[in-house]
Every structure is written in structure tokens, then in C-alpha cells.
């Protein structure tokens, strides 16, 4: 395609500047809307992925039965000889840390009131070192690996038990033998996960205290933390091959919330993108249809002079490309400015349903998203223009020349 055709297309878009400006404006708004919505969705996905991986570990190693069915007694499917297993996993070059985890349920009581708890026994120093400040501590301190008999309570649970740091509580749980065991603990701190339903039940305690309560040396799973998210699948392949008797899941296998949010957002933003795309196509189609009707006689003249219908169709497609390209470039610029502005002047989003904490509104500036959106906009504009032009450029020349 000669630059002459491109020049012709450019000049034609300047014939009716107001109409072209409106078309470019709407295309730019549509592009900006798609890029901002898509960037927000990507930010959400990345945030949720990071949270999911930080909660469970990039990889979760356990016995196959641990992931397949509920246990009859606590730690029935737990891992033995954890120290050796941990050492083997830490030998992998991509592995940054391996965190043991004991998960069980039971009752927690302040003497006057008992309620159900979901407990997680962790290695506090390693857990906080790897995950960073993953809990919002509202009262007291975080756990220390060197201290025994201390617990951290979710904010809702602490409120229910009227517990504050220093309060003595009793934990009751079934042992691995099925007997009931009790252990007195002291509240070290109160935290919020941002999910009120979780905060009403969750208790953190150190691994040794948890194992003492349910009388075991086993752990439920080992959370494997890698140096990067990208290392997840290669590391999974290596570890699964090295430990064939165990099951290795990725964070994604356990990220039900991430998966459901992604599915929901994909549909919402997909539908939004489709609607915006249709609007842009209609606007370009309308602008081009008017331009083509106005130029019917000129089309007849150009055909009489020896221009092939295909050349004219391509010329109109180039006009669509100019309009769609200018609109999408402008829209990309608007999206970039808004994204950067949100980094400089943060806007706090309200808490999502089921959460108690808001989060900063940020838009990911993803090159792939930008390129794909720009290409899609240009392609749609070109196709719409060519589609609108096809009838007029094949109209009998005599009729086109007689058009008033």
C-alpha cells in the first residue's frame, strides 16, 4: 500500500473536521475506558494472586489425601519427618523459604463463653519474615517463635470473647488419637485479615503449641515460597518429580477467591469491552457512511479514471485506520495519564463485599493490553469502514456520477 493512499486517507479525514473529531473523540474515550477497566482488572488479578501466593505459599506440599478428602482425626493425612523434607525443598534454587502449617479446628473459651475456632499453627518468625506484614495487627504484638503458649486472635473472635492482649484463654481440640485435649494460652495480639467472617474464627499460634495441643509431630502441609511468581510452574514440576509420593499444588489450585473474582471480572470487563467496541464500530461506521454518501460522485469519478473497487475499499479502510488509530492513541494517552495520576494522587476504594478494608485504586499499565487494545480498535475501524464502503465502490459508475 503506497504512502500516496495513506496521504489521501489522511486528507479525506480532514474534509469534515468536526465529524472526524467527534469520531476520534469517541474512539479515544472507548479505548481509554477499555484500558482503564482492563488495567484495573489486571491490578486486581495481580493483587489477589500475590495475596493468594503469600497466604498459602507458591506451592503447597502435602500427602495426596490431604487435598482429596476431609480427615477423620486431626493430622490424619499430615506430613512426617518435616525437618528432612524441609531441607530437601530448601535445596531447590528457586525456593526462598518453606513454612510448615498445622491446621485444625476446635473450641476456644474465656471461661464464660466458648466458641468455634479455626486454628493455624505456624512458625511465626519465618512466617512474618517471608510474608511481611500480612496481618493488620490492631492490638498487642505478633507471635515469636521462641515463645510458647501464645495466640493471636482475629478481631471478631477477640471481640466475641472480650479478649485483649494478656487475656488467658483455653483451647480445646481433638488429638490425633481422637481424645479431647485442652491447653491454656495467653493472647499476644489481635489482628484483622480484612475479611470479617475469617476474623470471627481464626486463631494463630506457634507450631510447637499447636502440635502439643493435638499431640503430634506432624504438620498439615508445607508452604513453599519461591523467589518469583514466574518460578511457580517450573518449580512445581521439579518438586513433584523429586517427591513422587507427595502431592504438590500451586497457589492457584487453592485460590478459590482469586479464581471466582477473575471469572467474574473477566465476564464483566469482557462484556464492557464488547459494548465499547460495538459503540466505537457504530460511530466509525456512521461517520464513514456519511463520508461515503457525500463522496459518491467522487467515487464514480475515481472509478471512471481507472480506480479499482478494491483500491477504493482499501482507501476507505485506511481512513478508518486513521480515525481509529488516532482515537486509540489518544485514548491510550488518556489512560496513561489517569494511571500515573492515580499513582501520584492515590484514591482509596471502598471495601469489597465481605471485606472490612478498602484498597488503593491503581491501574496496571500493561504493554500487552495496550498493544492488543490499539490493534483491535484499528482493526475494527478498518473493517467497519471497508464494510460500509463495499456497496458504494461497486455501484455502477453511471449511477455514482449521477448522484446528487
Amino acid at each position, binding site marked *: 500500500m*503506497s504512502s*500516496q493512499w495513506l496521504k*489521501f486517507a489522511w*486528507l*479525506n479525514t*480532514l*474534509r469534515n473536521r468536526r465529524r472526524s473529531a467527534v469520531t476520534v473523540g469517541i474512539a479515544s474515550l472507548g479505548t481509554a475506558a477499555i484500558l482503564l477497566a482492563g488495567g484495573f482488572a489486571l491490578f486486581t488479578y495481580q493483587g489477589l494472586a500475590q495475596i493468594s501466593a503469600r497466604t498459602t505459599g507458591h506451592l503447597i506440599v502435602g500427602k495426596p489425601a490431604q487435598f482429596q478428602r476431609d480427615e477423620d482425626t486431626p493430622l490424619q493425612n499430615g506430613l512426617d519427618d518435616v525437618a528432612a523434607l524441609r531441607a530437601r525443598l530448601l535445596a531447590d534454587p528457586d525456593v526462598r523459604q518453606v513454612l510448615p502449617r498445622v491446621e485444625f479446628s476446635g473450641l476456644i473459651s474465656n471461661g464464660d463463653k466458648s466458641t468455634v475456632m479455626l486454628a493455624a499453627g505456624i512458625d511465626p518468625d519465618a512466617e512474618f519474615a517471608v510474608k511481611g506484614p500480612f496481618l493488620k495487627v490492631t492490638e498487642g504484638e505478633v507471635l515469636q517463635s521462641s515463645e510458647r503458649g501464645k495466640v493471636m486472635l482475629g478481631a471478631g473472635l477477640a471481640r466475641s470473647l472480650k479478649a485483649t492482649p494478656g487475656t488467658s484463654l483455653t483451647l480445646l481440640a481433638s488429638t490425633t488419637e481422637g481424645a479431647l485435649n485442652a491447653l491454656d494460652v495467653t493472647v499476644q495480639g489481635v489482628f484483622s485479615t480484612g475479611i470479617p467472617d475469617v476474623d470471627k474464627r481464626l486463631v494463630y499460634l506457634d507450631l510447637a503449641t499447636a502440635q502439643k495441643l493435638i499431640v503430634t509431630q506432624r504438620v498439615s502441609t508445607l508452604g513453599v515460597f519461591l523467589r518469583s511468581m514466574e518460578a511457580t510452574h517450573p518449580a512445581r514440576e521439579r518438586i513433584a518429580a523429586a517427591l513422587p509420593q507427595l502431592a504438590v499444588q500451586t497457589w492457584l489450585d487453592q485460590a478459590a477467591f482469586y479464581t471466582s473474582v477473575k471469572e467474574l471480572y473477566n465476564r464483566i470487563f469482557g462484556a464492557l469491552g464488547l459494548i465499547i467496541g460495538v459503540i466505537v464500530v457504530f460511530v466509525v461506521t456512521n461517520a464513514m457512511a456519511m463520508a461515503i454518501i457525500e463522496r459518491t*460522485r*467522487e467515487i464514480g*469519478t*475515481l*472509478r*471512471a*479514471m*481507472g*480506480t*479499482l473497487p478494491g*483500491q477504493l475499499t482499501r482507501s476507505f479502510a485506511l481512513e478508518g485506520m486513521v480515525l481509529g488509530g488516532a482515537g486509540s492513541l489518544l485514548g491510550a494517552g488518556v489512560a496513561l495519564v489517569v494511571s500515573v495520576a492515580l499513582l501520584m494522587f492515590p484514591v482509596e476504594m471502598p471495601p469489597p463485599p465481605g471485606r472490612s478494608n478498602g484498597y488503593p485504586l491503581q491501574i496496571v499499565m500493561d504493554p500487552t493490553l495496550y498493544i492488543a487494545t490499539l490493534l483491535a480498535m484499528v482493526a475494527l475501524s478498518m473493517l467497519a469502514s471497508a464494510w460500509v464502503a463495499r456497496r458504494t465502490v461497486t455501484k*455502477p*459508475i*453511471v449511477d455514482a*456520477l449521477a448522484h446528487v
Partner: protein
Amino acid sequence: MNPIVTPLKLPETTPVLDLRGLHKTYRLGKHVVPALQGVDLTLQAGEMLALTGPSGSGKSTLLNLAGLIDKPDDGEVILRGRTVTSIGETEATLLRRDAIGFVFQSFNLVPVMTVADNVDYPLFLSGVPAAERRERVAQILAAVGLAEHAKHRPDALSGGQRQRVAIARALVKRPSLVIADEPTASLDSHTADQVLDLMREVGHAQGAAFLVATHDARLLRRCDRVVALLDGRILDVHTEASHELAMA
């Protein structure tokens, strides 16, 4: 005005255009309107032939058939010795691009293109190299006296200047045949004379044949032959010598 160089010459015995027994009818609702009813016409290289007659006599239809932008119901169109009546649309387009120039009553210039770009367009379509195109455009614009207006847009020109651009655009590719539909109808008397002089001068220099539909008596006087049409039939043919008398 500078003469155009490199005129295109056909063998003297081969007519540029040979129309044989052309018939054409149009349907207007339930009515069938005969536009041409057996027209025979021959046009030699360098000849300027005028078609005249009242509205509805078939002038425009004959121009359309000769210019390969319409097809006859019956009869033959022979261009440069080749029967082109039944060629396909693409082939007809390429033939028009190569061999036929058009001059329209209302100029039909592309308003967003400069004068030079309008004139350049047929050469660009034909794939003439850019350097040669620039030379030929400059040459023909000088020939029609518009060299200094090359960068202007058509809307900055007078009617006469626009028609000169249209003539330059029709002739720049050195066509065998130029189809002109009322080329002087939108022009004042003085400008019409200039345009006619130009068509004759440049056309003759290139050896192009002109088929001109007109009511303009000044134009009729300057043509080599005048063919009068009525109801789709040739009513009368005047040669250059005889039509002076007929016009009197």
C-alpha cells in the same frame, strides 16, 4: 502555453473508437426507454467529434458506452482495434486507466488534493515512477497555464482554471480517447474559448481523439465533425467544412 511532447500516435488506418450498431434501453418502472437505437460511429486519432442534440437524445449514453463505464444491450464497442464490448469490469477499469481520459461538466476534481495531486492521480494509478510523474505533471500544468497553481486546492481556482486542471488530468496519461461531457457548460464565454483552444491544442499535440457532448455552438464550430442525435439515432453528420453552414 507549452506544447505537450511525446504525442501518442496510432496507425492511421486504425480508428481510435469504432461504435457499431449500438443499442441501449433504460427501464423506468414499467416503461422501457430506448436511449440508443443502432448508432454507428468512428473516431480517428487526433479528431474532435461533437455530439449534439436535445436532452434525452442519447448523447450521455453514447459517451458512457464509449468511455466503457456502461455496456450496450447490443452492438459493438471497438477501442484501438479491439472489441471491448463484453470485457469484464476489472479489465474495463484497467483499459479506462490506460486509454481513456474524462472531462466532466462540473470538473469533478478531488477537493482535498492539490492541483498537482489531482493531475498526478491517473499516473499514480498507472504505476508511473514518481520522478517521471513529477516531470509529466509539471509539463502538462505548464501547458495548461497552471504551473504556478500546482500547490493550490481546486476551491482556490476559478471555474475556467478548474476545467483546465480537469483537462490536464485527462490528458496527462496521454490517452487515446478523451470523453468530455459538456466541458464548457459551466464556463463563461471567454473562459470557454480558452478551454476549447487548450483542448484542441494539447489534444492534437498528443494525437488524442475527443468525443464531446455539447450544446455549445462555439465548441461545435471548432470540432472536426458534429454528429446530431435525436431519439437515440444519428440524425445528421457535419464535417468541419459543412457544419459552419449548418450552424449559420
